[in-house]
C-alpha cells in the first residue's frame, strides 16, 4: 500500500504551471552556466530521487524521451514506478543511446565519455545528464567562462564526478559534440552546457 502511494503521489500539483516554472529555471540555468536557480520543492519522489531531480524529470521526460537511470534508481521499485507513472519515460539500458541520464550516485557515475555525444551532423542527439547533489557551496570552486557568462562565474557544487575537470576538458574538446550537465541540488538547480570552459580550479 505504501509503495503504491509513493508511486502515485508526489508529482506536480499543477502540471502545466509547475513544469513551465521548472523549465524556465532550466532554460535560464542553461543560458547562464553555473547560475544557481531556486525552484523550491515541487515534487516528492521516492528515494533515491531528490525533489529537484523529480521536478526536472517531470518537466522533461515523457514517452518520447529515452532515459538512462543509474543502479540505485533502477533498483528501487517505487522510484522507477514513480518515474514511469509521472513521466511515462522510455527507459534506456545503454547510456550512449539515451537522451537523458539520471544520476543519483555521483561516486558510481560512468565517465562522461560513455554517454551520447551526438554526431557532427546531429550534435543535438546527445545525452543531457542530470546529477543529484546536495548544495552549491562545495569545497571545490570552479571558475567558469563561455557563452552565457559575462566574464567568469564561480561554481561550487557540493560534489562532482571523478576527475571532473579532465573529463570536462575532453568534453569541451569535441564541441559541437558533447554532453550537457544539469546539477539538481536540494531545492535549486544549475547547468553546464558543453560550451562552458573551466578556466581555473581553486582548492
Amino acid at each position: 500500500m505504501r509503495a503504491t502511494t509513493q508511486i502515485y503521489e508526489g508529482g506536480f500539483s499543477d502540471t502545466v504551471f509547475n513544469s513551465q516554472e521548472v523549465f524556465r529555471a532550466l532554460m535560464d540555468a542553461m543560458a547562464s552556466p553555473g547560475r544557481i536557480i531556486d525552484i523550491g520543492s515541487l515534487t516528492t519522489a521516492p528515494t533515491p530521487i531528490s525533489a529537484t531531480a523529480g521536478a526536472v524529470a517531470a518537466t522533461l521526460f515523457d514517452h518520447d524521451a529515452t532515459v538512462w537511470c543509474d543502479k540505485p534508481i533502477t533498483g528501487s521499485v517505487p522510484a522507477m514506478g514513480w518515474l514511469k507513472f509521472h513521466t511515462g519515460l522510455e527507459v534506456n539500458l545503454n547510456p550512449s543511446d539515451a537522451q537523458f541520464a539520471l544520476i543519483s550516485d555521483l561516486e558510481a557515475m560512468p565517465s562522461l565519455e560513455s554517454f551520447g555525444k551526438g554526431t557532427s551532423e546531429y550534435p543535438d542527439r546527445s545525452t543531457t545528464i542530470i546529477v543529484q547533489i546536495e548544495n552549491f557551496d562545495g569545497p571545490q570552486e570552479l571558475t567558469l567562462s563561455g557563452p552565457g557568462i559575462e566574464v567568469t562565474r564561480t561554481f561550487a557544487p557540493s560534489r562532482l564526478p571523478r576527475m571532473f575537470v579532465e573529463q570536462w576538458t575532453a568534453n569541451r574538446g569535441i564541441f559541437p559534440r558533447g554532453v550537457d550537465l544539469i546539477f539538481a541540488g536540494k531545492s535549486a538547480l544549475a547547468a553546464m552546457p558543453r560550451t562552458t570552459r573551466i578556466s581555473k580550479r581553486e582548492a
Partner: protein
Amino acid sequence: MTELATYNFAYLDEQTKRMIRRAILKAIAIPGYQVPFASREMPMPYGWGTGGVQVTAAIIGPNDTLKVIDQGADDTTNAVSIRAFFQKVSSVRVTTKTTEATIIQTRHRIPETALQTGQTLVYQVPIPEPLRFLEPRETETRKMHALEEYGLMHVKLYEDIARHGHIATTYAYPVKVEGRYVMDPSPTPKFDNPKMHRSPALQLFGAGREKRIYAIPPYTEVVSLDFEDHPFEIQTFSEPCALCGARGSYLDEVILDDKGGSMFVCSDTDFCEDRQSEGHQGHLSANPAQADTHAAGVEK
C-alpha cells in the same frame, strides 16, 4: 458533432511543449546550431510566425510580460494578431514597452533599446538555413555545417564585392556564432547584427515551416562575416527620424505624396514614442513651432 475544443494554456499540449523545451535546451547548449523539432500545425499560417509562436508558447508563463513586434512596430497587423492570440490562450500581461517585457517576439527587427539580463528575444524565422540559397539540399547543407565548410558563403559574399564593389546582402546577413556555426539571423536588416553580439538577453529563433530551433545564449560571440579589405558595416541614414529626431536608429521610408515626397521615421515605434514623450522632436513632429519651419516633403 465533435465537441468544441478547449485549448491548453498557451495553446500547445504539454507533450508538444516538452518536445519544444527539450529542443530549446539543446539549442542553447549548441549556439547557432539548428535543432530539428517536430513543429506543429498552428492556428496561423506557416510563414506567419508559427516557429516564433511555438517557442513563445513553450516558454511563456503567468509571470511573463509579452511584447510582439513586426518590422519594429507593435501595431502592425501580424504583431497585433499574434499578441491577441497569446492574450486569448494564455492571458499573460502584454506591453509595447521594450523595457517592461520579459519575452519579446519579433519579426525582422531587434529593438533599439538595449536588451537586459532576464529578457528573451524570440525571432520568427522563415528560412533558418544560411546556406539554403547556395545549396538548396538539406542533406548537403547538414554536411557543410558538420565539416565547418563555409567557403561557399565567403565565395558568394566575395562575388558581390567583385561585381558591386561591396557586399550586396542587406538583411539576413550571415553571422558566425561563437566561432563555430554560420547562422541566419532571420531577415533583420544587417543594421541589427551588432546588437546580437554579447547581448545580455537570451535569443531564441523558431522556424515553424522548416522545423528548426536555434539559439544564442547571453554574452555569446556573434560576428558578421566579412573580409579584411571589406569589413562589415551597417546601414547609415543621412537624416534623423522625422518624428523624434533620433540619429542612429533604423528608419522606415514613408511616402507622403506621389511627387517624390517622403520622410524617414524610426521603425521601432516604442523607441520613437519614448523619445517623443521625453521631449525629443523631429522636423515633422506634432509640435507646431517645429512643423512650421519645415514643409512636409523630401529632405535632401
